[in-house]
């Protein structure tokens, strides 16, 4: 029974795969294989490091994609949940000597609990008001973190967070961390895919399309919005925990509005209502920011210009277009192969 269930997580029933992005296709194998082989083919630690950061950003983007991309709600405070995850791990491991794995799960639980408490009142708001409320929440989080010296270390933060380890195996190189982060991401993608192809995913989309119509078929709109918010926050909590373990530090500078906006950019650039797009956008933007870092004061204008050009070129997100392009190339290659066989 258990192996069958595990298999159904990875290879879903084709009859039930009603949503394109929730289907298991050869493309998924291609992506997974490419990600697995990438660090083995390119052994540069720098590549591994940037891809670790990209993976953490992708976890954040995936979580927000459920809330923003599928449920159609805006959050400008997503970085606060990332910070909550990072600080939970930092405090549990450095102060209480908790093992990183326990801190990892606790981080997601604390971020989810905070999202539940915050979400209950503010998710009654819509549109601009919700954006402002989440923005305010993000700023309050930063103030609390800066002021609660005894717990969070204030503006300096917490140092000396132990590296992630699992049953004595320490993730002490960027290569190992790469597999850790992307492994977690694959698990979260599977979870998200399953959500999307279930009644919860349909409720997300219904709420995004029309709250009134959704409520008249029995969907409790407030519950669905809150659920999407909490799941997104839990993902961010996982990301924050990994970030803290990998960087060995947690300080408020990393969890500000800039990060929230960056994650929103990843979701929008990746494509609304798309799971792989935000991940592709997270990889792209993380690399772009890393490369542009060399241009110092010109980096932000160049970054902004590239983003504007991309959004003009791909108004529905790079995820959708890239998928279409990839499907076209694969089908073209397949047709050519068949033709060659016929010619023979």
């Amino acid at each position, binding site marked *: 029974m258990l192996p069958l269930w595990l298999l159904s997580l990875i290879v879903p029933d084709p009859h039930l795969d009603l949503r394109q992005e929730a289907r298991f296709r050869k493309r998924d194998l291609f992506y997974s294989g490419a990600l697995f082989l990438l660090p083995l083919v390119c052994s540069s630690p720098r590549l591994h490091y940037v891809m670790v950061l990209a993976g953490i950003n992708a976890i954040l983007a995936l979580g927000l994609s459920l809330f923003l991309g599928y449920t159609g709600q805006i959050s400008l405070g997503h970085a606060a949940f990332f910070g909550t995850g990072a600080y939970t791990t930092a405090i549990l491991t450095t102060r209480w000597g908790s093992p990183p794995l326990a801190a990892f799960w606790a981080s997601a639980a604390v971020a989810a609990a905070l999202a539940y408490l915050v979400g209950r009142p503010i998710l009654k708001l819509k549109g601009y008001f919700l954006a402002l409320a989440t923005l305010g929440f993000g700023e309050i989080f930063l103030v609390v973190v800066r002021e609660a010296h005894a717990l969070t270390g204030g503006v300096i933060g917490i140092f000396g967070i132990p590296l992630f380890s699992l049953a004595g195996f320490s993730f002490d190189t960027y290569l190992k961390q790469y597999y850790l982060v992307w492994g977690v991401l694959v698990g979260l993608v599977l*979870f998200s895919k399953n959500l999307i192809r279930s009644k919860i995913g*349909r*409720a997300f*989309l219904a709420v995004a*399309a029309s709250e009134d*119509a959704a*409520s008249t*078929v029995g969907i409790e709109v407030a519950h669905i919005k809150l659920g999407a918010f909490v799941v997104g926050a839990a993902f961010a909590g996982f990301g924050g925990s990994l970030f803290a373990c990998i960087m060995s530090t947690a300080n408020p500078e990393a969890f500000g509005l800039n990060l929230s906006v960056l994650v929103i950019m990843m979701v929008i650039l990746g494509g609304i209502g798309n799971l792989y797009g935000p991940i592709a956008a997270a990889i792209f933007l993380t690399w772009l920011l890393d490369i542009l870092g060399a241009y110092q004061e010109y980096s932000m204008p160049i970054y902004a210009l590239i983003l504007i050009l991309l959004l003009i070129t791909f108004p529905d997100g790079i995820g959708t277009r890239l998928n279409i392009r990839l499907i076209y190339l694969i089908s073209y290659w397949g047709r050519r192969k068949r033709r060659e066989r016929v010619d023979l």
Partner: protein
Amino acid sequence: MSFLSVEEIAKSYDGVLALSRVSLEVRRGTIKGLIGPNGAGKTTLFHLISGIERPSSGKIYFKGTDITYMEPHEISLLGVGRTFQTLQVWGNMTVVENVMAGMHTRLKGGFLSCGLWFPWVRRMEKEALEEAKGILEFLGLLGRWKWPASQLSFGEQRILELGRSLAMKPELILLDEPAAGLTVAEVRQLTERISQLREEGITVFIVEHHMGMVMEIADEIAVLDNGELIAAGRPDAVSRNPKVIEAYLKGARADA
């Protein structure tokens, strides 16, 4: 105890009266038509019954339960489904997903069980899919079950919206101008489907401008004009009522 009972319902928007102390009843297993010129307050009454808006005064009872101030999802849980005057098909889903979304309350499972795709979630989804296909077959849309809903024709989207409400297994269904924008053949088909609903024991409360259709299928008709109930009764009696004729002529003159 009547099935649906609207008692002295009034609704005003910033002092403008949309409904003025309207009282009416819908009997179980019947088709009740609600007609009236544009702006008479028909859709407002449907919004109040389905909980999307709150009345200024009055009470609404469904199967003896006071639903006046209930949330829309609570009312739908009691067995009230509806369609909208402005098409509310979810174009971001496939045709069959739209219908399956209507089964939301009947399907068990929360965020965790769905995300982990427990075996019973999978089993339930499979059953829901088969049931949704059955509804689409009844409505003549099975051939397009995997299409994005936005790619259906306007008429087909209206039918799909009805299918989504039927997926809730409602006891009462409120149809707000279901024939608007349909071709003659589609109206005929819809008329047959609605009559079949009555045979299956579903009570229908329908707002419609397509008079031929309402007169043909309705057991009783209520007429609203300027937010007031001006007539109610059997279709033939209502169609001869001077107040009704005057209201429609007035509407026609205003349109001209």
